[in-house]
């Protein structure tokens, strides 16, 4: 439908109305499931022949798209990977080796939580995209305006996400999995520049590789175990049947590629070339969350196994290395990308431990990360539209230049690392789960990683908070449709801070009960909740209080101290010849020590070795 409509008011209207109706449905479904305590809806669709044929056709179609574009851009390796992934699965389906008779759909608490995330955050991003793409093409005249196609892809993507979350049949999950891979490939390549094409193919081959892993897992599950759905696979007790770890490991491997862990994180960095809504969508709500969603599903199986240990090591290592790398980059979106990778590493590590606290922390992290990160991406996109730069250094004094956006940005960044906000609470639970599972290396990765996380966020925050004298306010050209997306997300962060004990009780605990098939004690204690509430309250009371108490009203305003030669605006000084010179203090990036050229290659090599070792030992050891 979007393909037909020209860029117009009508299109925006349809997108907004359609988006909100999807969101409303998602919220309704989510709340209904959450309010029904402990009921899992397994749906077996009897007449699935038609749907199965559609899915098969879809898989062939996806393969054809990959074929066509690979030949067009002469990247033949993608064809190979696509063939390896798709053909065996098709053969299995056609030759009747696929198992029938299990539930196709399943809506449980974890699905409900994910539906809420995708429904709210994903749709808000789509709405944001309507306004954004107009500005984007206004600034980038060299890129052909295909924004209808772009919007359509975004909605297809979100649709695939919903499909993936509610499916229980492995074949269906595989189909949606491949849709997201190909969609992200098309989104990244949107601008059709050489860089975009290269990056999109990198994303494609990495994700197809993961898809191959998933495909093989699917085959093993079907043909060896006679199981066609995920919930049954995860209910096998691994100690009784070691061979079950083979499909689990392969699926975990696929999850690693999807959630961009080292050594597969370069596709996520490359995804930066695409317009902002797609990076927001890829990074916050959908693409990368599929991987960790899958890991959380598998998490009870991973506890105490070799695969689990390896997954946690990769996750912990990614958390640490990516946060060091994030220090060295000044491109706002790149900082966000590295921070995404590092946070996903943490989620992966949490899920890999397989403990209840680990899953609790992982689910919490997914929730908070989705909201904060999509907000940050969108704000950076708006700032870029207003200032024509997304460099952190250019955000110097943003609080004066673009106060509204700066305020939103500050809340977003605080949500990522400050104490009473959600991410840190989850980190706290993560630390507890690591200590309980006795994984020393993971603890070390986490503590050193959080040190560097603090560094790169705080210096960004500092740049925004700088007040420049005699600066002027820039024109805020953020359209209202983008504000429709930004304002709810901002308020969600704040509300979630207050609501997290409730969320823990009503959203996360049921997920745990369900995953472990028993009632488990509360992860977070009562007195801690009270203390955290006090902290959140203080954050909001201090600014208001200081305003009412008129603190500092009597203070005298002076210039900043520049050794007595301040030229009057803190940005110039008078040199020894009496001339005015500009003065600017940049942040520290320490590229000589943690630069991308120094750290990226070694960390990819190290993590690649870990992944290969994991696959060889588990898959090879089973035969």
């Amino acid at each position, binding site marked *: 439908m979007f393909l037909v409509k020209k860029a117009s008011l009508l299109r925006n209207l349809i997108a907004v109305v359609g988006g909100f109706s999807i969101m409303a449905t998602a919220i309704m479904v989510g709340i209904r499931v959450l309010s029904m305590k402990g009921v899992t809806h397994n749906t077996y669709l009897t007449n699935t022949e038609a749907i199965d044929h559609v899915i098969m056709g879809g898989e062939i179609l996806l393969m054809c798209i990959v074929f066509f574009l690979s030949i067009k851009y002469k990247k033949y390796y993608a064809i190979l990977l696509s063939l390896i992934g798709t053909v065996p699965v098709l053969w299995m389906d056609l030759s009747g080796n696929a198992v029938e008779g299990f539930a196709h759909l399943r809506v449980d608490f974890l699905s409900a939580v994910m539906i809420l995330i995708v429904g709210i955050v994903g749709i808000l991003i789509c709405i944001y995209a309507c306004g954004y793409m107009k500005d984007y093409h206004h600034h980038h005249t060299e890129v052909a305006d295909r924004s209808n196609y772009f919007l359509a892809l975004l909605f297809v993507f979100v649709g695939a996400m919903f499909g993936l979350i509610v499916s229980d049949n492995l074949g269906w999950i595989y189909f949606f999995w491949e849709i997201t891979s190909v969609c992200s490939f098309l989104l990244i390549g949107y601008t059709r520049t050489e860089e975009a094409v290269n990056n999109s193919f990198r994303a494609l081959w990495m994700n197809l590789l993961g898809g191959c892993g998933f495909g093989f897992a699917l085959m093993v599950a079907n043909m060896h175990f006679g199981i066609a759905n995920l919930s049954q696979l995860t209910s096998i007790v691994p100690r009784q049947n070691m061979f079950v770890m083979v499909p689990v490991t392969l699926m975990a491997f696929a999850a690693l590629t999807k959630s961009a862990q080292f050594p597969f994180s370069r596709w996520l960095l490359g995804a930066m070339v695409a317009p902002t809504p797609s990076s927001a969508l890829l990074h916050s709500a959908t693409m990368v969350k599929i991987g960790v969603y899958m890991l959380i599903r598998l998490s009870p199986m991973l506890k105490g196994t070799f695969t689990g240990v390896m997954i946690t090591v990769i996750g912990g290592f990614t958390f640490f290395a990516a946060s060091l790398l994030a220090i060295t980059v000044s491109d706002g979106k790149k900082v966000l990308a590295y921070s995404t990778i590092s946070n996903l590493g943490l989620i992966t590590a949490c899920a890999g431990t397989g403990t209840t606290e680990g899953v609790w922390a992982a689910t919490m992290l997914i929730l908070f990360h989705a909201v904060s990160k999509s907000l940050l991406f969108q704000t950076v996109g708006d700032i870029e539209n207003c200032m024509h730069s997304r460099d952190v250094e250019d955000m110097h004094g943003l609080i004066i230049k673009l106060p509204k956006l700066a305020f939103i940005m500050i809340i977003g960044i605080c949500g990522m690392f400050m104490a009473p906000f959600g991410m840190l609470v989850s980190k706290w639970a993560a*630390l507890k789960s690591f200590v309980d599972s006795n994984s020393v290396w993971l603890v*070390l990765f986490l503590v050193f990683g959080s040190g560097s996380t603090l560094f790169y966020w705080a210096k960004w925050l*500092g740049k925004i908070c700088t007040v420049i004298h005699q600066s002027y306010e820039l024109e805020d050209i953020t359209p209202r449709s983008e504000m429709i997306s930004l304002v709810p997300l901002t308020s969600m962060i704040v509300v979630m801070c207050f609501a997290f004990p409730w969320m823990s009780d009503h959203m996360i605990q049921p997920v745990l009960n369900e995953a472990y098939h028993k009632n488990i004690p509360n992860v977070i*204690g009562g007195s801690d909740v009270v203390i955290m509430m006090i902290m959140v309250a203080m954050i909001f009371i201090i600014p208001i209080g200081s305003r009412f108490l008129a603190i500092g009203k009597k203070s005298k*305003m002076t210039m900043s101290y520049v050794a007595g030669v301040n030229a009057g605006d803190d940005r110039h000084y008078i040199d020894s010849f009496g001339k005015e010179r500009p003065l600017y203090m940049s942040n520290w990036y320490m590229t000589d020590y943690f630069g991308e050229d120094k750290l990226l290659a070694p960390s990819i090599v190290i993590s690649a070795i870990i992944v290969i070792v994991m696959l060889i030992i588990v898959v090879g050891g089973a035969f």
Partner: protein
Amino acid sequence: MAMTVLKVALYILLAPILGGLMEGLDRVVSARMQGRQGPPLLQPFYDVYKLLAKQTTVVNSIQILFVIAYLIFTIFTGSLFFGGGDMLLVFFALSMSEVMMVLAAYSTNGPYSALGANRELLQMMCYEPMILLVAIGFYEVSGSFMVNDLIKVDSPAVFKIPGMLIGFLFILTIKFRKSPFDMSTSHHAHQEMVKGLTSDISGNNLAFYEIAEWYDQVLMMGIVAMFFICKNPVSIIVAIVACVIFYLMETLIDNVFPRVKYMAMLISSWVVILVAAGTNLLILSVLD
């Protein structure tokens, strides 16, 4: 409950007095080490009194907000600790208050403040891992993050986690802004970047900052004491003696070492943390 309130109230009232005396002692002892008579013991109080009496100059009004937030969060952190709260939460609140101070410096847009803020952030990056590890170390000892549970253990924590103590003492030098690592701001005149972090803070705000530092010092010494306190009441005396010894040791280090470059600080602190605390943790996990 009443006990907790009493403890917190005592901390809020007594900590600035104790912290000021500690700083005064530090200055007197430093002066004696250099062959000078030095200021009176109560000098820090005179300083803060003077600062409160002076006019406050600011570069912008956000600055005041951040400095006050720094003070309040530091007091909050200390209250949480002395009230027997969760160790990890204490440290998260601590890093939050530090970030407030950094933002106060950033917001001024002064070159010396900005440099001080960057250096302060680097210092935080150096000591943050160790601070979290200390909490984990205490958890290994008592099986709980709550301070209240930890003071009831059978034998002092230091027997089980001596490596943690070494690491913590190392970062204490950074935290107290003592000489090899007093990069972001320092108590001395020999500063190549004026006063760094506090360059553009004056009058009342500087007084608030000083008071917050006192609270912070008492909190840090409280954590050192935690290594020695156990069920036995005698251990409290041991802890106090240990605190005094370690505090004077920091003064000595301050007077003996010249300042290092920031990379030397980062590498040395991380190596010490990894070797001392990391090995300690590894051994504990093997023993379990």
